[in-house]
């Protein structure tokens, strides 16, 4: 137990949110207690985005704990996929949900959705935000990349810019200009 009055990094699932928000067509279904939705305002207020981050939270409360939080997760996941029609979903737990051990990955897979499901294991009591972002990106790439033919023209993939990344937007702009100038 460490007394903290200020922290540079949030928990690892916020890193996952940053990756999801930096992409289009990806939705994050997060098993989390009521209150974890505070993270939305990081994106809508600090970055002033014109849309909420693509995250649906189960927001379970105390009364749900005695009953079936796993079903709440499954229902939330199914409804989110139906409403937002993402191309793929990432699923996982925030720190509290990790403690109730519902296995969001397994539950999502059992829904037999038409779209790829990338389960995330982000140990909230050992890891922090930046690690979470890196791990999420890694799992998405590992789960979803396919071999494809080379393009006729030389092309370049810029890996890593996320939402809420310090100077990421500026860095991407600068790198693109440099590459175009080559």
């Amino acid at each position, binding site marked *: 137990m460490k*007394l*903290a009055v200020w922290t540079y990094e949030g928990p690892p699932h916020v890193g996952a949110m940053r990756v999801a928000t930096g992409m289009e067509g990806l939705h994050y279904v997060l098993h989390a207690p009521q209150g974890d939705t505070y993270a939305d305002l*990081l994106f809508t207020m600090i970055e002033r985005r014109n849309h909420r981050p693509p995250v649906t939270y189960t927001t379970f409360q*105390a009364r749900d704990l005695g009953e079936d939080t796993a079903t709440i997760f499954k229902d939330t996941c199914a409804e989110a996929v139906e409403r937002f029609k993402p191309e793929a979903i990432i699923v996982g737990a925030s720190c*509290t949900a990790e403690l109730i051990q519902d296995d969001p990955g397994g539950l999502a897979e059992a829904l037999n959705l038409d779209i790829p499901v990338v389960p995330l294991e982000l140990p*909230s009591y050992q890891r922090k935000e930046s690690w979470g972002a890196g791990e999420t990106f890694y799992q998405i790439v590992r789960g979803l990349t396919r071999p494809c033919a080379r393009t006729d023209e030389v092309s370049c993939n810029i890996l890593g810019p996320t939402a809420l990344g310090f100077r990421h937007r500026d860095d991407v702009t600068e790198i693109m200009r440099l590459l175009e100038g080559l």
Partner: protein
Amino acid sequence: MNQRFAPSGCQATPILKERGQREVFCGLTGIIWLHRKMQDAFFLVVGSRTCAHLLQSAAGVMIFAEPRFGTAIMEEKDLAGLADANEELDREVARLLSRRPDIRQLFLVGSCPSEVIKLDLSRAAERLTKTHAPHVRVLNYSGSGIETTFTEGEDACLAAMVPELAATDAKELLLVGALPDVVEDQFLRLFREMGLGPVRCLPARRADDAPGVGPNTHYLLAQPFLGATALELDRRGAQRIAAPFPFGVEGTTAWLHAAAAAFGIPREKVDEVIAAPRARAEHAVEKVAERLEGQSIFFFPDSQMEIPLARFLARECGMEPIEVGTPYLHGELMAPELELLPSGPQLSEGQDVDKQLDRCRAVQPDLTVCGLGLANPLEAEGLSTKWAIELVFTPVHGFEQAADLAELFARPLRRRERLAL
């Protein structure tokens, strides 16, 4: 004052209850204003990195050097064996208190993770109180999201303080709720001028000024979300003064009259004392109401202040509430408000945020009151919004603030006009 209201209230209006994603803060956020109100208290959250991150994100620039709140972030080894967690906690508390002799009250605040692992913080508080008595009293409450929604964090904090209050037989008025000092002082002055006293406050600004409670204590709630605190006061034998909440001219007048009646102060005396501030407030509100007249408003659930605020905006500012969402509707405490709120709006309790957003978009209200996670996205869709959290952080109670309260709703409408959106 605007007399155009429907003859019947909302007591019989069916309440839409939904269960889905709730886009609301947890009770830990209460720490942000409680630590400013209680000047010698420290709020120690026992939680995870998420809790620390929340407090930091929500408190923003209020993280000064040595603030009076922090998070004891639990690690893997704390989760393993609860014996370790208690030792760690005792160590952190001892270290904290030794370098902060100004702290007289320490709150161990439970979080979602500490609740789930069943870390007994009330036992820890009892233990630590014995260790650090008499200089520091240690109390415990849960601000976890699984137990508390936003302002219910204040409710849980105050409710935890009630059993520790000294017993008294004195007939006193107890003002309940963390009001900005300037607002509290205004109310205290009005009570003094009426000859109503003694008046005590919960929470007091300093530990030494904590009120007593007993069978002759008459308590008056300044906020609608203090149900648990009310229950604890009832258990100590205190008597609640039922009234609408002191928002706007009508609410403030009724609230003051209810208190006066409990103390045998004649109505004429009250009217005489409040005449000038009431007239000032009426005049000031009328001016702002010109901009609000006929505008529709949609409330997303947030603080439990939605129903009294909708009542004020409808009855004194001519607004038309379309939906009034609240996280929890306390039937007894809200009864005087439901009687006054003109029938018409959909009332909803709980939330499925995506369904509620669908309803909001379908009606295209002139003004939408919502949380910070929703405001900018809705603005981008062309809806004017008001940040619900401002209603908790801005002084809004009483006569002197009635026009400011109305202005909080007028400002986004004025801004939209000026920007020609």
